[in-house]
């Protein structure tokens, strides 16, 4: 059943779930102008509730955009509902989020790189919450009515599986292939789930947080090294290490 997010009907401030994504002040322009007033969000939620009772677990707004989390079994029928009841004929994208914390080592941090952003180490979830590590999210829009909504669905961590939207939105074909390839989420009903970007037979799912950014594992961040020695010093070092020509180079610009 729909979780009780504060159902402010008329308040101009956007409705916020108590999820750990409090809306700090967003840009005033999208709220006040004719873009996305609250009545539209309520209307959409209403239509979903009528078409798929009990599908919506939670909803929230991401800087004025409606985000709805639905149950896993209702993801399949949701495509048809979005197409017909919500009049959303346009599929923007289907992708996934991995809520596991960004690793510090094995990630970009090989060798003590200090420039990469430091992300929190606990797993927290975003707008409309989440039940676990993986979520599939998709956005549909209506070209005629000018509204849109982002839908999120939880997928099981050990066996990520969710229904495919290909029957309703043929464009979901490639999006779901990419999501499977990058996150490992399988789409039930997809005709041909195979690699899209990566070579066939690639092992692993790159966008998962436990898949390291290989560039930094193979080779340390060049910005780590100290300033390269001035040419005279470098020459002196090379001349000093006369016989060992190749070893003498490591004093000057060792990060080469």
């Amino acid at each position, binding site marked *: 059943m729909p979780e009780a997010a504060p159902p402010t009907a008329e308040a101009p401030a956007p409705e916020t779930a108590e999820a750990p*994504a*409090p*809306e*700090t002040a*967003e*840009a005033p*322009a999208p709220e006040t102008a004719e*873009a996305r007033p609250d009545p539209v969000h309520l209307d959409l939620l209403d239509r979903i509730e009528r078409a798929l009772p009990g599908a919506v677990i939670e909803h929230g707004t*991401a*800087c004025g*955009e409606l*985000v709805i989390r639905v149950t896993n079994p209702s993801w399949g029928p949701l495509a048809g509902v979005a197409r017909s009841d919500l009049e959303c*004929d*346009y*599929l*923007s*994208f289907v*992708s996934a*989020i991995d809520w596991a914390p*960004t690793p510090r080592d094995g*990630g970009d941090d090989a060798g003590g790189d200090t*420039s*990469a*952003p*430091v*992300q*929190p180490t606990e797993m927290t979830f*975003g707008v409309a919450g989440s039940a676990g590590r993986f979520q599939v*999210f998709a*956005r549909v829009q209506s*070209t*005629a009515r*000018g509204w849109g909504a*982002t839908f999120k669905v939880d997928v099981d961590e*050990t066996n*990520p599986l969710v229904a495919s939207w290909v029957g*309703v*939105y*043929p*464009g979901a*074909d*490639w999006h779901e292939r990419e999501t499977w390839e990058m996150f490992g*989420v*399988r789409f039930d009903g997809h*005709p*041909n789930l*195979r*690699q*899209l*970007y*990566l070579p*066939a*037979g*690639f*092992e692993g799912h*790159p*966008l998962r*947080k436990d898949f390291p*950014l290989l560039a*930094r594992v193979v080779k340390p961040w060049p910005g780590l090294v100290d300033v390269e020695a001035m040419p005279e010093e470098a020459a002196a070092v090379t001349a000093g290490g006369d016989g060992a020509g190749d070893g003498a180079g490591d004093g000057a610009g060792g990060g080469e």
Partner: protein
Amino acid sequence: MSTTEMPSAPDFELERSAMRHLADAQMNVELDTGDMILNLGPQHPATHGTLRLVVRLDGERVIAADPVIGYMHRGYEKLTEFRTYPQITTLINRIDWLSSFANEVPFVHAAEQLMGIEAPARAQYIRTILTELSRIATFVLFLGEMGLQVGALTPAFYGFRDREHVLNLIEGATGGRFHPNFNRIGGLKDDLPWGWVSETRQVMQLVLDSCDQFEDLVVGNEIFLSRTRGIGIIPGDIGTAYGVSGSNLRASGVDWDLRRDGVPYLAYPDLDFKVWTHAAGDSFARYWVRLQETRESVRMVLQLLDGLPAGPVMAKVPRIIKVPEGEAWVETENPLGQMGYYIVSKGATGPFRVKIRSASFSNVSILPWLLRGVYVPDVVTILASLYFILGDIDR
């Protein structure tokens, strides 16, 4: 646990209606010949970059086509998880490299929304001007280069020549022709240089003349018309179901432009402009719509120059940009179509997850459906008319 499965061979279907459409171009006696598999790409003049199209041909007719992408996949979404916001603007410049200023705008806008900052009015106007200049630069090249794909050698040179003027303008303002990296969170890096406004007015007149020249040279050419009319028709509802956006969708009759219909962004609410559509949905319609949109962009730039407000170009932002926790989705009408960024932030100096929704990815995903039953030369025409950029597909 899901294992990496070996991909099976693509499963092609035969559409009888597509075959009937070509019946009068064939001989009545069907010779019983085998099919040929032809690889268009990844190195091919017609595929605009490293796109590989595996087509199964019967003579000169395509039975099925399977695009293979990923030759330019740079892993941007993974990279963004390890970069700070200013570092990311450098990366995303290079997604659609023909209109690179326009790539930065939705990202920076999303970050500003999360931070609660609004860029000053002058910065919004200059951003809009530079976005429209990028649109003009991209479209002028398209007008010339589609002629080249259809076989006319000359329009391509005119396209490059006229684009140079616009690139000079962008370079004058930002310092970079292709990758300006000019947006900052909160505004822009710098103000416009002296004399830039008057020079822009002159260049806009030049662009209008150039559009007239293209209309004479290409649109008025009977051979071009016979090569593009009726080729590659995308019905409006199929287009939206695939996620086709931008001029491609408007050429199919769908009246939808994010500058007018979406969440207001930049200076577009202040502008008075027309959204061009065409009912046919074929390759000619896509060419024609882009031609008109180029002219419309020129008018928009002139309006913006007239209404350019004074003031600062940068809002007050902290030195180290830390975006508060939250999620934001911003979509814009980029030259190639709808581009959007879904930023998930956890309060660090860099995002937690960025989903980059690029236009060409969806535009190209319609190819397996669209290319059934067309001739090989029509494949080239259709690819040219959809106008995708490989960096935009592969990110």
